């Protein structure tokens, strides 16, 4: 396959990752959210594998496999089991102003392109054009964590942000050194387990995973 064609496939998959980032922002249903997240992981893994093939970087195949196992299988599975066991699949979030959130998302994408364009000039890799998309994916995950009020949605925002970070490492440098990548994966796995523990703690103390009930810790202004 010609390098130009591969680069175009990489661009296409990156665009899909970004699109799913927007999908996550707007989706209200918990299961659908989980599926979108798994799809994002799948496109990310495919993207990584193609970069590995196109650039001939052997260790990226391993990274792709790691993503596939962690982000498409293991973590969605853990979350799925938790959702089922805690019977929260019927929770539908009340979300305020989805169009506005999406507009802010678009602004963040533009911002990411602005920030990364001087940096991209230093790159000679086949993935140079996707660096801005990676930052945009991180930013969308961040936005999701801020705007969402449901614990599961915030966690998926966190994980989507991590997808963006992994994506950034692939597009900037064909992946971080192996030690670092494995350590990061381990941290994410521990984080996912702790999130699970938290779901139970939040459920038992607040009777719901809707975090708008959490408002005890505020500054007492005006004594």
């Amino acid at each position: 396959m010609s390098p130009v064609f591969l680069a175009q496939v990489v661009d296409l998959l990156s665009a899909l990752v970004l699109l799913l980032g927007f999908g996550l922002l707007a989706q209200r249903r918990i299961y659908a959210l989980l599926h979108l997240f798994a799809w994002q992981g799948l496109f990310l893994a495919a993207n990584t594998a193609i970069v590995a093939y196109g650039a001939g970087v052997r260790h990226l195949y391993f990274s792709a496999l790691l993503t596939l196992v962690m982000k498409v299988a293991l973590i969605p599975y853990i979350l799925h089991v938790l959702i089922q066991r805690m019977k929260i699949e019927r929770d539908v979030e009340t979300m305020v102003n989805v169009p506005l959130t999406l507009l802010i998302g678009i602004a963040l994408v533009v911002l990411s392109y602005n920030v990364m364009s001087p940096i991209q000039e230093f790159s000679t890799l086949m993935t140079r054009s996707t660096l801005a998309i990676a930052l945009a994916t991180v930013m969308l995950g961040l936005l999701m964590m801020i705007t969402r009020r449901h614990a599961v949605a915030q966690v998926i925002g966190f994980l989507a942000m991590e997808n963006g970070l992994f994506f950034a490492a692939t597009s900037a440098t064909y992946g971080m050194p192996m030690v670092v990548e494995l350590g990061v994966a381990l941290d994410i796995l521990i984080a996912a387990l702790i999130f699970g523990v938290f779901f139970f703690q939040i459920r038992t103390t607040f009777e719901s995973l809707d975090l708008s009930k959490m408002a005890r810790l505020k500054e007492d202004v005006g004594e």
Partner: protein
Amino acid sequence: MMLTGLLIAPVVTAVPLAFYGHRRFAPYVNMAGSAAAFLFSVGLAWQVFDQGPIQTSGGSFFVDAFNVFLAVLTAFVSMTTAAFSRPYMAHEFKQGRVGPRRMRLYHAMFQLFIFAMLLALLTNNMGILWIAMELATLATVLLVSLYRTPESVEAAWKYFILCGVGIAQALFGTTLLYFAAERVLGEGGTTLHWTNLNAAASSLEPTILSLAFVFFLAGYGAKVGLVPLHNWLPDAHSEGPTPISAVLSGLLLNVALYAVVRCKVLVDGATGTNRAGQLMMAMGLLSLVVAAFALFLQRDVKRMFSYSSIEHMGIMAFAFGLGGKLATFAALLHMLVHSLVKSSIFFTVGHASHMHGTQQMDRIQGIIRGNPLVGWGLVVGVMAIAGLPPFGVFVSEFLILTATMREAPFLAPILLLGLAVAFAGLLRKVQPMVFGAPPAHQVPVRAAHVPVILHLVIALVLGLFIPSFLSQWFETAVSMMRW
């Protein structure tokens, strides 16, 4: 050998504690493990003092005057905190606030947390530094929610989510750093080694490094608690068990600031300017002023002292940002004395809140009559942290102020304002708690006095004179930074 021992001691201690952490002997195991780590850290410091910076054969670990002093401090405070935690947690256990399972979790995670901080300090790899910082968050997040009250669960969730957001920015910064470094040093595991990056700093692309620093500062700065990324800190530091508050405020903030400074050295090397420092100065001053005014609004005693930590981290970030021999020296000294004094304050506050069964300041009165050592410990601690002579904090703040007058005189009034407001705020709040008649609901508790006295005596000695080995040590650390 010392290095291996230092890193392995907490892990080895954590294993039995995970299984027997609820037993009567567990606090002693905890103390012994921390004491062993402290001995190893002193041995390591001796090596560094004797032979200069040490780098392990693969280059994975790098110990110089800057991080070894923080490692000794970390091991020391964790040792005294373990001693304080014994009567404190025994009280919580007796009151039924924590059951056996949570005692096991508490003890094991305490040691794991110490390990994560030591790893962050001693590693040479900027990627591992990130992993260790995240590990430190993960180890403490379940400790913040240890009591399972709605407040503590909320605090822990906020801590987890906001620090997660923050730390993600730092990982993006690390990616950018690797991107810049790969063009100079080539691909591979050693490219992210701080020593290699530092040697090649002048040839790293300044545009990329400047952007990377913004992400580093946002990421690690959130963990330092710099305003406007400080939202999680007062909650996390006030809702968890007090020994954890002491190590979070006294140690973890230092480690996060250490990470920022390491990044700053690289960025300064690449850009040849002090733009990174200016960013730190701005955030530092903002933190100082915002936190100083926030002190007045607090009702929860631990929350108030968490704001005081933000204030002091602001001062340190400002001083490191200012750069120059004097300010950097003062910042290092401030890290040391703040850590000692703040943890001792948390020790006394922990006992005081046990005596009154609450952390609400308006229900805490007459501590001195109830328990003179705890009461006077708090008074002396607050005097020290507010920057009164003859304590160490006074010396470091005075040096920072002198450096500011010389380098950036127009910022000195803001610095003075922040310090004065914080001083007034602390004094106003603490006075009614310690003096006066004890209320009816006050009960006596068994307190650990030795850690408090030890910390305050060291802070006092450092205010009167700085031993020559320490000043020599700081000067070596100062000379490694550039500006």
